[in-house]
């Protein structure tokens, strides 16, 4: 017999959003993941955030797998993560690494929690008796905690630990602990593991108001808080109070808990500060503040005044600008462009801000109840440690060095980074990079001789449906609580036994320990019943092992129900005088009877196999398209690469020689082209377009039309990546086309490169930013094509790049850049700083006061308002340069129809969720990458391409996948094809097939949300396992 192959294993350090996403991706393919976090909990910064824009809801659970969802608990992600292939190690740090790619020997240090979380029942008796109190870090000191505490108040299971720094070892907790879970003398552990690849995702932190001297001076009272602390102030698990206020809550200001009705945000606290060596933009704070300002109004009423003091409102990401416009116009969030110099404390505790309003050119002083400092991202000290551990040097910016074109791949093979370790990232980038890093790791693992964990397919006998239901009821009375419970288990047993279709009732002591388990096994093996109902404690922890146990005894997994009986027992124990007389036995009886009814009518559910065509259709042969094609081909997936023009490379790969980051897109494009042409797994279709697509995940069929040969062929594929790119934006504004002295940034750049444009003798150059960008058109879409409601992201940096180049050649030249907001986010800020240092003049203009251009004596003359002089200025310039930006590809609209995927108001494709599912479409099996998504830099496009190829690979890596048992079905005999279910399905899982006159369900896409069953009047749509009959019987019994 051949030796059993080792399971491919990856270490992911850092259980923030990107680490979790990377882990889930790898687990999805079937690799084993060790997920560590140096803190005692998982979730990173996001554990503290209840709301994220643009939805202003939480949505973290959307990163859970959509296919194979039954392998991960579908559960609130901020509470916990459960996946069969992920081992979570909180409070654990990587301390030693040896070996090389594909074979790393690592040492992990697991810090002592002093509480055995396997034994702890989470009821928190120890917390009550602990005499030591401390300000709670989770709520930024707004609330208090004990020495023994739960770091995230809603984590499940309750992951308690003891803070040894303040513990006095009084032993009170040890004495009261009913499960002997506490050991105050526990020691840190060292774990030795072998892994094949390592993903570093240890992230950043947001600094607090006391961290830096330049920020500290603003923090004049408790009511000046950091943006993260404000999140806790508006959170129900923080200090937000929405009880007893007629459904309207109050935002309590920390000093005296009085409602804060006037709140100011001050941006760029601690960042964009060259003097303090923090010459970068934290990138996330503008949107963070806008969201908080909107939320403040939603939480505490429209009358709450919110003002944001900012330098540049950096709304550079997809849909950011529209969110800002909405915040200002619909929610009345006030924006004032002013660098506030300080906050003063009034005797009545209110806070005073003096500011200059550029709109009126006047100084004002205003008082506020609270001030939020937008404190940004800061790199953790452990960057140095990482560098030491892996033996490399940090870059001059203090970052981890990566490969030239790649934000995630280190020069050290087998080690990848994602999330904020790459620099300053927001949620969607963190998620994308997590996926991409997983993709890279899986690429490596696919070249090694390692095994994947096979999907466990249970082939169960289908005979049970014909048998009359006979239910075995097993109740654990939890010996520990038994003495005090007010539930009479003997009575319960007697009553349950009389029920029709209940075969047997067994009461056991402690199902959680070994004795109990053995008792259970004996019971189940003897049982003649075909359905099983178990009432226990913490079903979340035990569900998997108990189900396995019952399955071994011959029960069918969908006919095993496990419910939480312990909470009821616990409630009954707690009964005191203040509570009305409750017959707890009757309460328990009704609950169990209802569950019996449900189980009685429940059908056995079987997973359906789905054959997968392991081919991907990549639409668009630009750099993103070629990159994804190659990444997939290297993982042995067949690729059809469709390009509508006669050559590969797209815009960047054919026209952009150099970028400000030092990339060379043209040479990269050429390199990719050669690889793509030579790869045996890639078939290239030039001059071709997709004209029709049908099918569902694993089995799509698309018609490809060759525009030259005027011939169509059909291709079968299992998934598709849309990387159709974008266009240069065109403009009619500012006399463009009426003078050869008026150019776009692109034309200038090319002219400088080819030396066709001579700037040696030029005196004045004016650049106008946002030409056609960030103006929301009032007309119909498409009619006013030059107006775009988004930031093109690349133009500010592009303008500065060109300006710096010109300055280099001609230091005496005067360059004016007329801008609305300079979008040099992240480390691009350094170029902005440099440009100002070199004397490039930046002048702000607003939409109401746009610059005016006329041509006098063959020279463009630009008139604009100069705000320092507060006067109108006219400049006759040698060249006027217009930053025209990026426009969406006009064919997107057509493609959207063909692929049945949506496009937004600006003509870009709409991903499933802008934060949590940025790479995939709502339609299962379709992914997107590059500027088809939104304007972005090349490195970001490559990151998305890597991520899209990972997502496609994860879908197609198996020849057969098994869809979930709980999915929706159509009873065709009842269906009238009204198609309401098709319209409402949020997952595009339903289609109407005209030729069959039937509603078709895509089993892989269906998430069993039940919307189809809601709109269907006569149950022609049904979620298997949730029939009306079951539910009505349940309700009937519970009443």
């Amino acid at each position, binding site marked *: 017999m051949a030796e059993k192959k080792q399971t491919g294993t990856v270490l992911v350090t850092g259980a923030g959003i990107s680490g979790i996403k990377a882990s889930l991706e790898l687990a999805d393919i079937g690799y084993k993941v060790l997920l560590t976090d140096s803190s005692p909990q998982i979730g990173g910064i996001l554990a503290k955030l*209840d*709301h994220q824009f643009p*939805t*202003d*809801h939480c949505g973290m659970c959307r990163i859970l797998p959509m296919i194979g969802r039954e392998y991960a608990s579908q559960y609130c992600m901020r509470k916990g993560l459960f996946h069969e292939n992920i081992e979570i190690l909180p409070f654990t740090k990587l301390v030693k690494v040896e070996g090389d790619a594909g074979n790393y020997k690592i040492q992990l240090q697991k810090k002592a929690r002093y509480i055995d979380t396997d034994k702890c029942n989470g009821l928190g008796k120890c917390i009550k008796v602990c005499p030591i109190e401390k300000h709670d870090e989770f709520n930024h000191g707004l609330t208090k905690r004990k020495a023994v505490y739960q770091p995230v108040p809603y984590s499940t299971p309750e992951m308690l630990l003891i803070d040894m720094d303040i513990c006095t070892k009084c032993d009170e907790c040890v004495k009261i602990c009913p499960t002997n879970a506490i050991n105050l003398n526990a020691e840190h552990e060292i774990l030795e593991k072998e892994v094949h690849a390592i993903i570093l995702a240890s992230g950043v932190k947001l600094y607090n108001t006391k961290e830096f001297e330049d920020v500290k001076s603003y923090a004049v009272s408790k009511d000046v808080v950091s943006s993260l602390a404000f999140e806790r102030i508006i959170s129900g698990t923080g200090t937000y109070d*929405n009880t007893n206020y007629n*459904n309207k*809550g109050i935002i309590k200001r920390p000093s005296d808990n009085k409602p804060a009705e006037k709140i100011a945000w001050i941006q760029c606290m601690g960042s964009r500060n060259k003097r303090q060596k923090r010459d970068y933009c934290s990138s996330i704070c503008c949107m963070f503040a806008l969201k908080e300002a909107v*939320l403040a109004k*939603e*939480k505490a009423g429209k009358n709450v005044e919110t003002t944001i003091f900012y330098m540049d409102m950096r709304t550079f990401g997809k849909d950011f600008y529209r969110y800002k416009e909405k915040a200002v116009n619909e929610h009345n969030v006030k924006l004032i462009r002013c660098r506030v110099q300080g906050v003063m404390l009034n005797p009545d505790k209110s806070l005073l801000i003096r500011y200059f309003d550029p709109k009126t050119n006047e100084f004002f002083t205003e008082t506020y109840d609270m001030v939020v400092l937008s404190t940004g991202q800061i790199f953790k000290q452990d960057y140095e440690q990482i560098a030491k551990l892996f033996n490399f040097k940090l870059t001059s910016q203090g970052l981890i060095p990566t490969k030239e074109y790649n934000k995630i791949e280190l020069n050290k093979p087998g080690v990848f980074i994602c999330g904020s370790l790459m620099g300053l990232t927001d949620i969607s980038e963190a998620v994308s990079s997590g996926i991409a890093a997983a993709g890279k790791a899986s690429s490596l693992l696919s070249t090694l001789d390692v095994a994947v964990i096979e999907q466990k397919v249970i082939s169960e006998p289908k005979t049970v449906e014909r048998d009359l239901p006979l239910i075995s009821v097993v109740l654990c009375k939890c010996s520990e609580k038994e003495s005090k419970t007010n539930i009479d288990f003997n009575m319960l047993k007697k009553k349950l036994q009389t029920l*029709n279709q209940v075969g047997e009732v067994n009461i056991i002591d402690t199902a959680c320990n070994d004795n109990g388990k053995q008792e259970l096994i004996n019971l189940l093996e003897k049982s003649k019943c075909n359905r099983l109902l178990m009432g226990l404690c913490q079903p979340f922890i035990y569900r998997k092992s108990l189900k396995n146990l019952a399955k071994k005894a011959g029960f069918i997994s969908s006919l095993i129900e496990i419910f939480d009986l312990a909470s009821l027992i616990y409630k009954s124990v707690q009964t005191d005088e203040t509570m009305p007389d409750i017959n707890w036995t009757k309460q328990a009886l009704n609950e169990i009877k209802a569950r019996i009814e449900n189980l009685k009518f429940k059908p056995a559910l079987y997973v359906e196999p789905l054959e997968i065509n392991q081919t991907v259709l990549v639409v668009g042969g630009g750099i993103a398209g070629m990159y994804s094609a190659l990444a997939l081909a290297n993982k042995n997936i067949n690729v059809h690469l469709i390009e509508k023009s006669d050559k590969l490379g797209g815009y960047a790969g054919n026209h952009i020689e150099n970028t400000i980051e030092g990339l060379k897109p043209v040479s990269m494009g050429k390199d990719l082209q050669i690889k793509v042409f030579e790869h045996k797994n890639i078939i290239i279709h030039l001059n071709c377009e997709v004209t029709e697509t049908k099918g569902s995940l694993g089995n799509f069929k698309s018609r490809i039309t060759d525009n030259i040969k005027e011939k169509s062929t059909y291709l079968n594929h299992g998934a598709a990546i849309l990387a159709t790119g974008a266009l240069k934006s065109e403009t009619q504004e500012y006399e463009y086309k009426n003078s050869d002295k008026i150019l776009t940034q692109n034309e200038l750049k090319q002219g400088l490169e080819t030396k066709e444009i001579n700037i040696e003798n030029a005196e004045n150059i004016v650049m106008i930013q946002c030409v056609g960008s960030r103006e929301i058109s009032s007309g119909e879409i498409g009619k006013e094509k030059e107006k775009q409601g988004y930031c093109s992201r690349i133009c500010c940096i592009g303008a500065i790049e060109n300006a710096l180049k010109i300055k280099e050649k001609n230091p005496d030249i005067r360059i004016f850049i007329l801008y609305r907001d300079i979008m040099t986010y992240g480390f691009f800020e350094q170029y902005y700083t440099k440009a100002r240092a070199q004397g490039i003049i930046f002048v702000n203009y607003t939409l109401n006061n746009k610059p005016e251009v006329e041509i006098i004596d063959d020279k463009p003359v630009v008139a604009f308002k100069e705000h320092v002089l507060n006067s109108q200025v006219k400049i006759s310039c040698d060249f006027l340069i217009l930053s025209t930006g990026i426009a969406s590809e006009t064919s997107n609209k057509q493609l959207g129809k063909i692929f049945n995927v949506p496009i937004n108001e600006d003509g870009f494709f709409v991903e499933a969720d802008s934060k949590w599912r940025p790479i995939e479409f709502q339609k299962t099996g379709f992914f997107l990458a590059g500027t088809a998504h939104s304007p972005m830099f090349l490195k970001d496009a490559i990151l998305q391409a890597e991520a899209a190829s990972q997502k496609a690979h994860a879908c197609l890596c198996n020849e057969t996948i098994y869809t979930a048992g709980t999915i929706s079905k159509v009873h065709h*005999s*009842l*269906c*009238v*094809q*009204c*198609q*309401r279910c098709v*319209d*409402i399905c*949020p997952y595009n899982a339903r289609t109407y097939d005209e030729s069959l006159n039937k509603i078709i369900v895509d089993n892989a896409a269906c998430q069993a949300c039940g*919307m189809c069953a*809601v*709109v269907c*009047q*006569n*149950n*022609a749509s049904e979620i298997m396992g949730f*029939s*009306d*009959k079951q539910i*009505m019987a349940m309700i*009937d019994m519970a009443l």
Partner: protein
Amino acid sequence: MSKSIKLSFKKGELNKELADFFKKMIEKNAIDALLAPMTQPNKGVMQTLVTKNSNIKAIDSIDPFAPVVPVNGAKIASSITAKPSNRKVAMILRSCEIRALVELVKLKQANLDDVLLIGIDCIGRYENLDFLKFQEQGETSESFIEKGVAGNTQNNDYDISKACKICEFPRPDNVDLRLCIIDTGSDALYIESLSLKGDKALEKAGIDLNDSVPASSSNTVKKLIKERINARDKAFEEYRESSNSFDDLEKRFAACINCYNCRVACPVCYCKECVFVTDTFRHNGDQYMAWADSFGTLKMPADTTFYHLTRMSHMSLFCVGCGQCTSACPNDIDLMPVFRTVANKTQDRFDYQAGRAFDEAQPLTIFDHDEFVEVTGQVK
């Protein structure tokens, strides 16, 4: 300005003029078929389909203004058009039928691509048996309209249906052509075109649109609507008062025998097989026994109030208030008031009105993040 033609008629010859008009439409190939209320050989008036290939002379028995609606015509329109026949058919329907049809189109149970939809002014209808008496008394559509416009619809011991008395849609919208007769003079009717389809059909039939509906007519319709709305709101108040508890509802439905006639008569109950005849409601004996155990007694047939409430929850958003449910009940349960009153509230809550517009999406088919925040609570 509205585009119309005037169709003058001598006393007693309204239907003859209309018959000539529609025969001409068929002869000139403006339409291939006509569905219209026609007098039946024995008694009564029923929707009747006449095609180009059948006996066109049959159109002579046309009587679209007859004050009776044996079946809500939306259901008939649905059966003819759900699967297209590819033949141009003109359908003469009244407001309640058209509004129900609008809903059925949205539910993909009817397709108007090949339909020339013709609406008529309607003051109300008699119950089917009352209409027979009406005919026996020698009354005609012409006499009904004349008296009806003046508000005299009562005839001996019967009157137009309760639903009609509170109907605020005497003149239908969303049609291609409209036959206007309310206050247009006793010797004339106006055929008004409201769509391109209508224009084209008339053009093909060689009919010039050279007139417009007199202002007096529109004013009278407006006045009528106002009166009806007042009556409606008063009725709503009354109905709410009389059915505002579960006990009152039980009382109202007490005589129900689960014959499901109301469901069959309802134009917007569009399921092929109602959930109440599926397995979901086929209970076992022990289930009935268990209910009797826990409630003390069990009235049979069971599930009657539950049936009505379920049906209400299924169709109240599409209910057009035609009153066919009341007309269909063999035990004289007055269902219309309950359904109409509830529908009024549910539709209001979604800012929706059944039958108002083709392009108004039905509630619950679109996902709206900020819908009913006051009910769902501040999820944020």
